[in-house]
Each structure stands twice: as structure tokens, then as C-alpha cells.
């Protein structure tokens, strides 16, 4: 690639030839404001917000589609550029409903932001605004407010480029233009949520998130989606120790700017249906109780087995750290039997050649590196197991058939094993801990803690300490 020297607002820099001016300015830490341009999408050039002046060019040019050439001198702060921006803002707002008080985008809206940055003049518009439909269900959990739409076509392009779908298009002309699906059709592609992310205004909102939380109350933690073995990089948006939404985080090597809709809603288990306290089996059924009583029960169960009858089943849904801790614990305390693993293994898993993988576990690669055996190969010597996280339905059946007892289940949520396990010990979900997943390509990706471990859940290592103590007291007693 050839490098060229250009000047932006008096600052010299070197960029690859053809770099668009928005990206070139970004390298200087400067913003050329824009609506329709998105670095992950082919440029369009419709919003005209990124108009700048380039010396020797007769007219202002759009930054998003002007490539840097040797010696180019660009002005992004001249009075004329400022005036153009102000006029574009004025145009964008004349037919805009300005319903910020009830708009989910408020607080992360480019219209609001740029109004403050580049406009700040009262409206001169005295005419009737164009009215359109404010509640259009586009399908796939996406709602459209046609009046808020600025027709930037980002959503149309994200469908074309990411989902390879032509489901969205612009219909009508002039200031009646609006985004639509074809008559009688709705969006069904599994990447539709990205349209909401790229919409720079509140025209597209997520049915799942809308009206739930003002965005300025949300905090974000860098994380990794645990929905499949791709490991899309995400942000966990949370407040009040609950997760409100997941958003994709840019990683050109894994997921670019995108994530799928399955992954996007794969946070609900963090908030709901949790195992927040220890439980154990009684004659009256599963009982929620203190750690003390749960461990007492575990002790009584473990007394029935010798160390060489016990092993563990690790989970491909847990982090590298948690899998290591679990495997080490089993090895050092029992260790004569092989250690097994289980995976989330739904029937007919959806996959495509975009992002979605058929393997619905975030950490199969790390499990593979540990030399564990699948539960289907479990041998006769095994009488009791510690189970990490969960078992697939098939694996649970194997244990049932072979009469193998689950002495303890380290669970985030209520599961189909609840009645099989003697003791259930609560562990935090990915949102409540730091850790790493190894994706299908062997990429080790870190995720960070968004929430405090909910309820009385604890990392595996803490449970392990207590169980070790328990085991040694059993040994002493015998």
C-alpha cells in the first residue's frame, strides 16, 4: 500500500492512499461528524453531514467517499464547513418529532449529540411536519418509528452486508421516504438486532430493551458472548446488578462490528431463573438452605463413596479459569478415574457462514485442550460425579442409566438436573466474573466482570476450598 502525505486543519499526517477522510481525521483524534457512514458498511454518502473542504476542489466533498491523495489539504473547521453542518442539522430536524423524553435513543442519539456540537440554534421551521407511522413492527424484535428516521440507510446496508438479506429497503420519495419491509413480509434474519445498533437515532429500537432503562443509567463491561463458539466480542450493559442488553464490540478478527440475535438475548439467564443459594435434596424435595447445611449434606453423601469411585464432568460453557480450577480439583482430590466433559448440545443447531456456529458452547476449544472424555464414554468404575454448570439431556440420561450419582452440581441456573443432584452450589455467570473463553479458532478472549456475583454464588475455587476441607475431615474420621 502506498502512503500519502495529507494535511487536515494544518496537521500533517501520513495515511494509506485512498483512506477516506473520516478515517484519516480519526487518526488525528479528530471527528468529522457523520450519520450514514459506518466503518463496517460500504459508504453511501446520503446524509451530507461529513461535507468538508478540500483545496483545489470546486465544491465541498463528503469525507466518507473522498480518498486521500498525495498533498491533499483538507479543512474540517472552516466557517463554511461549520455553516454547512449547521444547515444539515437544521434540515434533519425540521421534520423530526423531537420526542426525546419518550425516546429510547435519548442519551446516545447522534441528533442530540450533534445538535449540541454543531447546531445550537432554535428552529426556524413554522410549517406542518410530515407525519408518519410511529409504531411499525419490522419483525425480528425491531420496532420502527418512521418519523424519527433520517433515511441514512445504515439499517438497509447492514441487512445487505451482514445478513446478506434484502429484507429492508427505502420506500416513497422525498421527505416521505421511509424504511420498510415488503408488503406482507417481515424481517426474519438472525442479525436484525444490528440494525438497531447502527441506527444513529431512535428510529429503530429493540423490543427487548425499549422502555426498560434510560441509557445514561447503564454501565458497560467488555465481555465475550457465550452463545456459541465464535465468541463475538460484546459489551454487557448493566444497572442495578442486572443486565439490560448486550451490544457487539468491534473486533475485526472475530465479529467485526456485529453479533447475532441469539447471542444478543443470551443474557436473560443472568437475571432470571438463577440458583442464588445452596440447595440440597431432602425427602420433601429440593431445599434451599445455608452453605453450612448444604456442605453437611454433601459430607454425608460423599461418605458413601471412596475416592476412586468419584470423578468430575467439566463444562464447555465455563471459562478457561473455571474449567482449570474444576479439573485441578478433581485431579488432586480423586484422580484415579478419567475426567469427563459435557456440552450444550441442542438438536439441529442453527449455523451459517456469517457468525453463527453450530457449537453452542463458548469454550469447546479449551475443553478439547484438557484431554477429557465425553460422558458417553463414562466407564463402569464411576459411581459419583461432581458436575460443573450443567449436562446435556443425553449426558444426563447416561448418568441415569448407569446409576451414577451427581453428588454436587455447580449451577448458575435452575436446570433439568435439579432433581438428580444431591447438592446444588451456586456459581456466578460470565457476567459476574473475569475470565477467558477460547473460541473455535483458538483465540483466547478475555471477559470482564459486569455484576457482583449474584446472591450467594461463588467462583468454583471458593467452593473447592470448602470441599477440600470437608474431604480431609472425612479422611480423618475414617
Amino acid at each position, binding site marked *: 500500500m502506498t502512503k500519502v502525505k495529507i494535511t487536515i486543519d494544518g496537521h500533517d499526517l501520513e495515511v494509506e492512499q485512498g483512506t477516506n477522510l473520516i478515517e484519516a481525521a480519526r487518526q488525528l483524534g479528530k471527528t468529522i461528524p457523520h450519520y450514514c457512514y459506518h466503518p463496517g458498511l460500504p459508504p453511501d*454518502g446520503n446524509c451530507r453531514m461529513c461535507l468538508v473542504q478540500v483545496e483545489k476542489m470546486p465544491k465541498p466533498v463528503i469525507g466518507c467517499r473522498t480518498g486521500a491523495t498525495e498533498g491533499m489539504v483538507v479543512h474540517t473547521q472552516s466557517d463554511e464547513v461549520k455553516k454547512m453542518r449547521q444547515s444539515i442539522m437544521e434540515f434533519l430536524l425540521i421534520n423530526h418529532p423531537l420526542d426525546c423524553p419518550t425516546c429510547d435513543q435519548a442519551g446516545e442519539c447522534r441528533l442530540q449529540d450533534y445538535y449540541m456540537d454543531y447546531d445550537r440554534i432554535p428552529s426556524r421551521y413554522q410549517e406542518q411536519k410530515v407525519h408518519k407511522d410511529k409504531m411499525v413492527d419490522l419483525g425480528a424484535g425491531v420496532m420502527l418509528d418512521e418519523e424519527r428516521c433520517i433515511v441514512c440507510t445504515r439499517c438497509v446496508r447492514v441487512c445487505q452486508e451482514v445478513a446478506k438479506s434484502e429484507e429492508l429497503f427505502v420506500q416513497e420519495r422525498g421527505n416521505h421516504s421511509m424504511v420498510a419491509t415488503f408488503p406482507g413480509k417481515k424481517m426474519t434474519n438472525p442479525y436484525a438486532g444490528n440494525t438497531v445498533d447502527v441506527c444513529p437515532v431512535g428510529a429503530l429500537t429493540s423490543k427487548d430493551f425499549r422502555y426498560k432503562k434510560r441509557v445514561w443509567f447503564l454501565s458497560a463491561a467488555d465481555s465475550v458472548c457465550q452463545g456459541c463458539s465464535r465468541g463475538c466480542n460484546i459489551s454487557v450493559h448493566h444497572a442495578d446488578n442486572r443486565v439490560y442488553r448486550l451490544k457487539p464490540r468491534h473486533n475485526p478478527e472475530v465479529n467485526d462490528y456485529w453479533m447475532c440475535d441469539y447471542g444478543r438475548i443470551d443474557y436473560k439467564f443472568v437475571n432470571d431463573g438463577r440458583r442464588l443459594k445452596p440447595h440440597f435434596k431432602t425427602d420433601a424435595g429440593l431445599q434451599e438452605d445455608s452453605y453450612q447445611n448444604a456442605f453437611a449434606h454433601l459430607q454425608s453423601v460423599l461418605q458413601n463413596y471412596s475416592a476412586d469411585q468419584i470423578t468430575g464432568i467439566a463444562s464447555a460453557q465455563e471459562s478457561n479459569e473455571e474449567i482449570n480450577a474444576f479439573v485441578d480439583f478433581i485431579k488432586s482430590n480423586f484422580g484415579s478415574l478419567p475426567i469427563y466433559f459435557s456440552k450444550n448440545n441442542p438438536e439441529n443447531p442453527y449455523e451459517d457462514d456469517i457468525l453463527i456456529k453450530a457449537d453452542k458452547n463458548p469454550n469447546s476449544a479449551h475443553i478439547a485442550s484438557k484431554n477429557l472424555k465425553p460422558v458417553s464414554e463414562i466407564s463402569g468404575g464411576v459411581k459419583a460425579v461432581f458436575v460443573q454448570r450443567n449436562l446435556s439431556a443425553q449426558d444426563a440420561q447416561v448418568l441415569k442409566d448407569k446409576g451414577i450419582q451427581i453428588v454436587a452440581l455447580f449451577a448458575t441456573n435452575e436446570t433439568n438436573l435439579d432433581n438428580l443432584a444431591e447438592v446444588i452450589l451456586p456459581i456466578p455467570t460470565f457476567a459476574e466474573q473475569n475470565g477467558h473463553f477460547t473460541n473455535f479458532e483458538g483465540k483466547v478472549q478475555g471477559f470482564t466482570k459486569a455484576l457482583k456475583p449474584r446472591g450467594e454464588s461463588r467462583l468454583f475455587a471458593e467452593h473447592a476450598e470448602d470441599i477440600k476441607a470437608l474431604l480431609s475431615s472425612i479422611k480423618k474420621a475414617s
Partner: protein
Amino acid sequence: MTLVLTNRFKLKDSHTLAVYEENGGYKTIDKVFATNPDDIIEEVKQSGLRGRGGAGFPAGLKWSFIPKDPGKPKYVCVNADESEPGTFKDRYLLELDPHQLIEGIIICCYAIQSHDAYIYIRGEFDLPYRRIQAAVDEAYAKGYLGKNIFGKGYDLNIVVHRGAGAYICGEETALLESLEGKRGNPRVKPPFPATHGAFGCPTVINNVETISALPWIITNGAQNYRQWGTEKSPGTKMFSVSGHVNKPGVYEVPLGYPIKDMIQNECGGVGGTGRLKAVIPGGSSVPVLTAEEALDANLDYESLMEKGTFLGSGGIIVIDDSVDMLWALRNLGHFYSHESCGQCTPCREGTGWVSKILDRIYHEGGTQADLDLLNEIADNMSGKTICALADALAMPVRSYLKKFPEDFARHIKKTA
């Protein structure tokens, strides 16, 4: 007067192949195929023929931008979308001499070595469509189109494609999008159609009238074509004259012809009140001329430029002194806001805003601030968009306000 384009218009059944051939049609084909393609381009360059669709770009020069061996097809698209208010010349060329256009297409295709041409025709054109389609069919039947045309070992196909009723599809890149089956939105340029045109291939787009002039030019030579017109505007041009004239219609005259003579001689004088107020010389999108300016102007590219306006598509609208120019501008506001494709913010919002302000002033009266705002909106719209449609309203807004202030003052509320 025998000129270039309209010579056969008065003949009975002028649209048929038989009449065309009896009257000199397809006579230049032998010469064309005996000439080096580059020499044809050179001849067209020498003739000084400029695009008749509005922008006046030299045709030969445009063709010379087509890459010689692009490794993919090259296309020729004839722009027959004619929808600019006040412009109705192409329809006559399509209705009355469709074979002249087909012969022109053959010349153009051969010159750039293209084997596929499209005629993109305005959806509302019914008779013109039937005539050009029938002519194409006749030409195929006779072996003038299709494989090995005229036995010259050259294949050429022409497809007539009907638009769906959008003015914007006359803009050349919107035309290409529409031709490709997409929404007719103009494309950002560069890249230009010469390298990235129809289906991503090198493409020449010319107006019907531009292409229709080719048979005459190749038959009679560039120098002969230059017997008419001026140095920078050689040849003849068809003008569609409408409005307050006694004989509205389409007239072919040499470029450089005085507007005054056009109104007096060809059109039988100013109609209506008989008192000239204004002339729009080049289709509704160009700046308007006052009567005084118009009577002093000639119909050629440079003379009208000097007067601050354009020859455009040659749609002359003559306006008498009964017309309220605010009312006229309001009409244009409606048209351009309705026809804006809506992709660029300044055009989508600006055209609608202008239109609504004019409506309000017209119905309820306005203030001086409204007029200032109109000027400012026009400024904010022009030169900032993907195609020239925004300018096509901005130019009238500024020129009407500037040249006919009394018509706007009349609507200003005294109390404001």
C-alpha cells in the same frame, strides 16, 4: 428550413422503416463500418455536438473516456426519460423519427465498440414507446439489429426499457440504477458511468436528441454541421416552447438563435396578455430571465451563461404579465419536492421546506423573514448534494426572488 433532426417530421408515416429509408435513412451505415471507430469519435468531437439532455457536455469527448479493452461489456444508454417541466422534444423524435435514433445508436455503439444498447424511456410515454419499440422490431426483422447487422459482422442488440414514472430516473446514474432493477437513486460520482456504468461496466449515456443528430453528422461531416450555431455551440437544437406564445410547439433552430426571434417568428408572438414578463430558457430548473434579459439573449450555451442561466434541455417557458411569479415558483416547489429521491438531507428536507413556505405565503401571506429564509434554504441546498436536483429548485428560488421581488412583496403582510 431543412436542418438536422426534424427533416422527416412532416412526412406521412415518418416513423416507419420504409419512409425512413426512402428519405436517406440508414444510408450512412456503409460509411460507418468502413471507418475506424476512433475516427468516428474524432468526427463527433470535430462536430462540437454537445449533450442535449441538459448539461451540454461534448459528446465525442464523453465517448473518448470509455476504456478500449475493459475486459467486460460496454453499454450505450439512451436517455429518453424526458420529464423536465417544459421539455417535450424527445417525444417527437421518438414518435416521428424513431429509426433516426436507432441509426444514431448504431453509430454510437460502433464508435465505442459496444454491442448492447438500452433505450430508457419515460414510463408515461405511450405512443413514443409504441413507436420506438415498433421501429426496433422492424430493424431486427430486417437484420439491422441483432446478429451480424447489415451483414457487417457486427452484433448489436437494443432493449427498450420503460421507466416507472420518476423524474429523477432521468438523472443518468439514477437511470442506471433503475435499469438494473433497483430504486432510482442517483449514484455518488466519481466513479463516472464511463468506467462504472450499467452493471458496473463502461457506459455511454446520451440524450435522445444527441444520438439522433449522429446520422446527419456522419453523413454530412462535422464541418457541415458547424455551418449552424456558434463556435462553442455548433449545430442545431430542438426547443420545446410552451406558455404564453401563440404557437407553442417544438422548433429546431440553429444554436445562437435569438429568443426574441423564436417567440416572434416561430411561435407567432407572445400570447396571453401579449405582454412578456419572463422566460425560462432551458427547462424549469434553470434561472429565469426577465423580459428585458430574454429579448437580448440568444439560444446558445455561452450567451445564456452570460445572462446567468442555462440552455439546459431547451424547454422554453414564456410567461406573460398576468402570472404571479410566486405562484409559478410554488408550482416548481411542488414538483421538485415530489420528485426528490430523498436520499440527500438538503434536498429531501430543503425542497419540502421551500414548497411549504411558498404554500403558506401564497395562502396566508408571509413576512420578509420568510423570503430571507427561502434564499438561505436555497443556498444551503445548492452544491451539497449527490445530483443536481437540489440545485434545480435552488436556482429558480434565488432567481425568482431576485428578479421579481414585487410579486413576492405583494404577499407580504404589512402588519408583520
